């Protein structure tokens, strides 16, 4: 697709995603990291829409922004004290970390851009795929679907059990 509007919007969301992810990683303030992660999740959800996975995009917004980000913010507030939001987080291993960052990105991009071309299938996904997700969930993937629901229930009960208020210890 070489529609200029499409391209510009794609680059806009790509820039939002990448720069807010960089801000998550490079800022020292934990609260700033958490709020910047919000923009990363929204940017990634927009990229999912470009990949014609609109249902996954909505799930991303609901689960990541509504669930995981709130949990992370709760963790930040709980472990830093509500009043001292200017909490800085220490950094170590900065040299090996930078080498790893440059190495991973460089190696992957070198591989992607020098290997000769991906060949897209004749039948790429087009339009909305919500209906197909429904059929797949209830036919091929019904066993993993049920297993993941039980796993999620067990994990949430386990999390509530681990983080419960302890009367005797407190």
């Amino acid at each position, binding site marked *: 697709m070489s529609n200029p509007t499409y391209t510009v919007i794609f680059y806009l969301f790509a820039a939002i995603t990448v720069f807010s992810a960089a801000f998550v990683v490079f800022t020292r303030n934990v609260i700033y990291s958490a709020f910047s992660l919000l923009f990363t999740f929204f940017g990634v959800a927009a990229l999912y829409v470009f990949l014609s996975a609109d249902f996954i995009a909505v799930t991303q917004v609901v689960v*990541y922004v509504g*669930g995981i980000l709130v949990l992370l913010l709760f963790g930040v507030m709980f472990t830093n004290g509500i009043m001292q939001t200017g909490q800085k987080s220490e950094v170590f291993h900065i040299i090996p970390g930078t080498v790893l960052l440059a190495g991973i990105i460089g190696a992957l991009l070198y591989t992607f851009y020098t290997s000769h071309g991906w060949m897209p299938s004749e039948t790429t996904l087009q339009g909305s795929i919500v209906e197909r997700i429904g059929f797949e969930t209830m036919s091929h993937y019904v066993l993993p679907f049920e297993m993941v629901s039980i796993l999620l229930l067990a994990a949430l009960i386990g999390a509530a059990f681990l983080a419960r208020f302890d009367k005797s210890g407190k």
Partner: protein
Amino acid sequence: MEQLTTIGLNHYLTISAILLGFGLFAVMTRKNAIVVLMGVELILNAANINFLAFSKYNGGMEGVMFALFVIVIAAAEAAIALAIVINIFKIFKSVDVSSIDSMKE
């Protein structure tokens, strides 16, 4: 120029590689356990972008379904990890991962 203006698979793979690099950087260099968890979330998002990109250009539904399951697993992982971090904070009064070096109080 043609390659820049026509959005293809390589664009998505590039964003995914950058997110993976940032996530690994956060996991490796930060001392705060919560920021390490944010790095893990970035890595999972990078993997999801890859799954969906290959699924779109392959035309199958496998990547889409796998991405859905990855999101569910990420939710379970975040809940458990936060519970563990809160317990660590109760015991050690800190979430500095480099200072936690014993498995009992």
